């Protein structure tokens, strides 16, 4: 009996000693981490998804500069979204990013429960005081410009557009693109297909083939797979959100590029200064704030008719000078091709 209790006491002592040492170690670790702001992101799709890839890139850049310590969860289902958000908030992240489109109510509740954490979420809704800001891909301006180029490049006068779902984020870019194409080519016709999936490139490719079979010679590549169909058939494509010309040098003419750096750098600065408030970051995705741009024409610099380039550049300047506003139309686009 005595022997046992002795052993037990020694055990307890050694465990306690380890615990103390452990806590000390942990403490120093925490102190080290405090030097950098902790940032987390929760995405409903993989990092490769065009939209998310732009946010991921900007946050990774901030981490590479040594400003933040960045953690992210990808492919989080909507049912799990709130739980993951809460976990990141509890783990002491000062700033959390994500997309709350499908989980609006839950995400806003988390923000209320963690008033000291700053949130910047992709959302079609309004900001919520004091700590829930919203952003969205308001890149209709470069979409319009890329449409002008598409209108100037089509020979058949038919442009094909394959989209995932007809949600505002997709619709407004398609409408801007169509308006731009009509400016350089008033007779141009459009074919529109939605495939009800963000991630089915074989299906997107199939939809694109269907349009090319019907005479489309310029494709608006909202999804992965569309540029591949265009490449295989020797047709052209216009990129969206990301620039993929390096992968399709003979196919992708131009792209409407989204830059998340202005939004994210602003938010990080405000959080650091303790001045983060609820606001709409929409304008930081616009061209005048460098939140979006018409990607460099690259391999197609010389292949686009000079008058189209001149017109497009003039329009670009008008947008930057605030003399031209691209209409935001969130309704579902329809086919006009005969």
């Amino acid at each position, binding site marked *: 009996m005595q022997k046992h209790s002795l052993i037990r006491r020694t055990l307890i002592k050694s465990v306690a000693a380890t615990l103390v040492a452990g806590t000390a170690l942990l403490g120093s670790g925490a102190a080290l981490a405090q030097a950098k702001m902790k940032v987390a992101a929760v995405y409903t799709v*993989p*990092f*490769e998804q065009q939209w998310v*890839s732009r946010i*991921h*890139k900007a946050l990774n850049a901030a981490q590479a500069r040594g400003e933040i310590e960045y953690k992210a969860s*990808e*492919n989080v289902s909507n049912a799990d979204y709130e739980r993951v958000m809460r976990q990141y908030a509890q783990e002491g992240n000062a700033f959390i990013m994500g997309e709350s489109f499908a989980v609006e109510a839950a995400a806003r509740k988390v923000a209320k429960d963690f008033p000291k954490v700053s949130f910047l979420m992709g959302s079609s809704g309004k900001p919520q005081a004091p700590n829930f800001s919203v952003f969205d891909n308001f890149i209709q301006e470069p979409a319009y410009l890329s449409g002008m180029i598409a209108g100037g490049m089509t020979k058949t006068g038919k442009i094909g557009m394959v989209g995932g779902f*007809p949600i505002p984020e997709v619709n407004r870019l398609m409408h801007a693109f169509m308006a731009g194409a009509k400016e350089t080519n008033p007779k141009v016709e459009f*074919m529109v*297909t*939605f*495939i*009800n*999936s*963000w*991630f*089915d*490139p*074989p*299906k997107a*490719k*199939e*939809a694109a*083939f*269907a*349009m090319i*079979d*019907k005479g489309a010679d310029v494709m608006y590549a909202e999804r*992965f*797979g569309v540029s*591949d169909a265009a490449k295989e058939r020797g047709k052209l494509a216009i990129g969206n959100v*990301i620039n*993929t010309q390096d*992968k399709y040098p003979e196919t992708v003419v131009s792209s409407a590029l989204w830059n998340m750096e202005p939004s994210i750098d602003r938010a990080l600065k405000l959080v650091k200064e303790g001045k983060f408030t609820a606001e709409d970051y929409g304008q930081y995705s616009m061209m005048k704030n460098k939140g979006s741009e018409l990607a460099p024409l690259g391999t197609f610099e010389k292949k686009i008719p000079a008058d189209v380039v001149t017109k497009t550049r003039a329009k670009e300047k008008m947008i930057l000078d605030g003399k031209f506003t691209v209409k935001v139309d969130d309704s579902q686009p329809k*086919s006009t*091709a*005969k």
Partner: protein
Amino acid sequence: MLSEALQLLLSDPFWVAVLRIATPLIIGTLGVLMCERAGVLNLGIEGIMVAGAYTGWLAVYLGAPLWVGVLAAMATGGLFGLLHGVLTVPLALSQHVAGLGITLLATSLSYFAYRVTFPKVTTPPTIQPFQAVAPNAMDGIPVLSVFAASTPLTWLAFALVALVAWVLYRTPVGLAIRMVGENPQAAESQGINVTAVRIGTIVAGSALMGLAGSFLTLSAFNAFFFNMINGRGWICVALVVFASWRPGKALLGAILFAVFDAMQLRLQQVPGNVLPYQLWLMAPYLLSIAALILVARKASYPQALMVPYRKGER
């Protein structure tokens, strides 16, 4: 709209698209059909297709020839089939639960492996996929021109239909497979090892499922995406019922579904179209259900399907 549809049926690019959409369905349906003929439902197909799509693509990405990628996909399918076989045959677990478990496991595992292998990519890495066998070589010749414009895996799918039918109906092995799916007691009394035949058939059927998945990354597209199987596996499970467990009818069913799908993608664009696009997307599924009602009512399913065999039990 009717004339548009009829015109489509006469155009080559339309039929090439049909075969492209049908190929993974044909091969996947054969896989499910084999498992069920041996008496075991395999709902692991959706996940096994994801795993096959991943490993087949990965092998090619790492420098292996395309056909080695195909073999890698089949081996992956076979491994998951072995797991399903062990769970459902000797252990006699619920075939539904084991199958769904395999789908969840294979899907998550594939994605985990993908992320571990490619932690930092922002655009999916690509490979050079299978090309058309001889595009334009047979122009003007009906049927042949369509096959010439398809990839080798589509040819393989048609060959597999013949092979599976031949094995099932013309060989002792096929007889054993059908017997353990109809009446395992009788099979046992004839000296057939029910457990071995069932597991073997599940492994072979699952290898076909892996192959079906790899068509998407090695032929229809050139990169791996997490959700790219997108329910195609479940369609195969339904097509087996449509086919009344017969390989020839499975081919027919897969092609019929692909015709509906290729057609809706084209008819969505017809001027004066007032139907919402969601209805068009639904069309292949609705028409399949209608066909199922017409064709499959008289279907006789394998008598021992989903009945675990316990030796000596009556």
